[in-house]
């Protein structure tokens, strides 16, 4: 298999601030590759460099075999970009939105119509081709925007948070189209997300990015094995003192203890063995367990392991949503 995207020591600095810090990655052809990390981790900057919007401060990258600095025109002709914010024209019909993009990408007039018809059909919007986009639901708009980015059959498709703001049903629909696209067209997909389930169910491989650095890379199964090597136990307590925490941390079978909203999250090698030991230890130090659950680790646990904090704790996510809402009012 050939690499669709390569990066070596790719770095972007804004003044003193290093947004992307010596990133080296290879993304294979036909792969669905996820970039996960909290907002501000450098994912979007990385995508902007790969899509020729920002020149890198140092390092090199190729997309679809073209150097991003020396052959930006060839890169642009071979990529599709689904930006985070909605950039459809509400005043125009679905067909017009597609047609104008087909022209931007120099899709020959003879095949333009057929291609638009085919793509609209794929996302179930062909019957609404002549409706103004203003009348579409959020999910319909996202689907339309997705196929608009496919109008020139790009070899690499960059998707910046493709399902943010969609309800679960619409998210599933988008995921289905993306898988179909990869299976049928062999398109390489590079997806940024802070939804861990999205990375887990959709992506073949995932890179975790924090403070501009790639801190882990692999399939989600590999990452989970590397990070936890076992099970996750969530415990909640009727009473929880500092001494209980100390006692648990001293247990050799427990690899990591973190406080969560409900109580404690414990990473252990073998859940079945660890459960009775934890109960004993808590009881011995005078605590009282309310409930305990054992589960398979998720990418959130992986993120916790590698960064020492939960991806959901990041308050910037909330603030960004608010700005998004303001944006929709001014529109």
């Amino acid at each position, binding site marked *: 298999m050939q690499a669709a995207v390569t990066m070596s020591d790719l770095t972007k600095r804004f003044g003193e601030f290093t947004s992307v810090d010596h990133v080296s990655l290879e993304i294979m052809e036909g792969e669905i590759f996820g970039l996960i990390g909290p907002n501000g981790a450098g994912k979007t900057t990385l995508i902007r460099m790969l899509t020729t919007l920002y020149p890198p401060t140092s390092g090199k990258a190729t997309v679809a075999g073209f150097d991003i600095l020396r052959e930006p025109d060839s890169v642009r002709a071979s990529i599709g970009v689904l*930006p985070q914010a909605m*950039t459809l024209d509400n005043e125009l019909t679905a067909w*017009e939105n597609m047609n104008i993009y087909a022209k931007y990408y120099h899709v020959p007039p003879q095949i333009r119509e057929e291609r638009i018809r085919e793509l609209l059909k794929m996302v179930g919007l062909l019957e609404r081709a002549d409706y103004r986009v203003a009348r579409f639901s959020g999910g319909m708009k996202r689907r339309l925007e997705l196929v608009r980015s496919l109008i020139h059959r790009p070899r690499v498709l960059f998707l910046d948070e493709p399902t943010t703001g969609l309800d679960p049903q619409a998210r599933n629909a988008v995921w289905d189209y993306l898988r179909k696209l990869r299976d049928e067209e062999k398109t390489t997909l590079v997806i940024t997300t802070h939804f861990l389930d999205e990375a887990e169910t959709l992506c073949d491989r995932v890179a975790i990015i924090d403070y501009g650095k790639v801190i882990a890379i692999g399939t989600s199964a590999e990452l989970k094995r590397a990070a936890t090597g076992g099970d996750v136990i969530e415990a909640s307590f009727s009473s929880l003192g500092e001494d209980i925490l100390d006692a648990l941390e001293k247990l050799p079978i427990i690899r990591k203890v973190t406080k969560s909203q409900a109580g404690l999250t414990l990473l252990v090698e073998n859940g079945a063995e660890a459960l009775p030991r934890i109960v004993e230890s808590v009881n011995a130090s005078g605590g009282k367990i309310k409930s305990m659950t054992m589960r398979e680790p998720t990418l959130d646990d992986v993120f916790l392991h590698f960064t020492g904090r939960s991806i959901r704790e990041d308050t910037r996510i909330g603030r960004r949503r608010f700005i998004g809402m303001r944006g929709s009012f*001014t529109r």
Partner: protein
Amino acid sequence: MIGALWVCERDIRKFVHQPFMMGVALIGPFLMLILLGYAFGGAVENVPIAIVKQSQGATSDRILDAIIADKSFRSTQVQDLNSARRMLEQGRVRAILYIPSGFDTAIDHGNQAFVELYLDNTDPVSSSATRGALSRIVSETARPEEVAIRPVLGGVVLDVAEYYRKVEYVEFMAPGSIIQALFIASMMGGGISIIMDRQRGVIEGYLVTPLKQAEIIVGVLLAGLIKAIFSASGMLILAVLFAGVRPNTTLPGVILTSTTILLTGLGLISMMTAFAVRTPLVEVYQLSVVPINMILYFASGAVYPIEGFPSWMRMIASVNPEAYAVHALRQIMYKSADLAAVAGDFAFLVVFTCLMCFLATVAFKRAL
């Protein structure tokens, strides 16, 4: 460069899908034209006039001195009537006072004497003021205490020739409204839509397609220009329907009118584009364009002749593109002027438009 056409097509399609917005752009200039147009009038000062004095004598000298001393006029002495007429046709003077060679001799012989007044009546406010002030001066100077002149007192007649057809005040205002419609369309089409597109990431979306920077800039300016011309044409039609404007429909007249609108439109759209891409907030932009519109419009001579302005406002007018555009349109529409008559206006507009195109390109590139 074909990409510029597609960028332009998108903007024009959006425009066509919003017929309501087209109407909104015309409401302001139209109301201004109708309300002010039918309500205004006033005294004028510093009107440029040419004096052709071909008679030698005490009476004609006194008339000349009195006119030079009067603050209503800024007078220039010209040797012959033909060159004075040329000045009138080119808009350099508003009136010609012609004192024919037999004037003083006629008075000396006790006969009736005539002076002739040629008025640029396409500007009704200043032409009526000019007529009034000149009649007063001629009758006053012909009533001195010198006995020799007394007999011919009643014989001095001011002979007025209206040089053009009568132009109502509302017609006088119409060119200003057409230019204002250009400005408002530039402000909305060139300005607000660019800010919105930038906020929404549409412009950034362009940059990941094979579109070239130059294609994006040309496409955006072209779309803005088409919208502005559409708006100005709409205003012209409204002016014909509701303000009784009879534009110059000869071939040269149509060509010169279109050239003025095209040139001014491109200049204004570039100016507003340059301004808009440097203004990140749509609210800031909307608040600042209102005073800009007022300054450009009222300091253009659109509603009142520039000659009536105080000197600081005349300074604004001298660098105001709308002033040159309004002057040119008046010359063309009401005086059937040729290219020579508007050459000065065109020269300014060409320089202005080139400068603004350059500024828009630089500003746009920095914003991309």
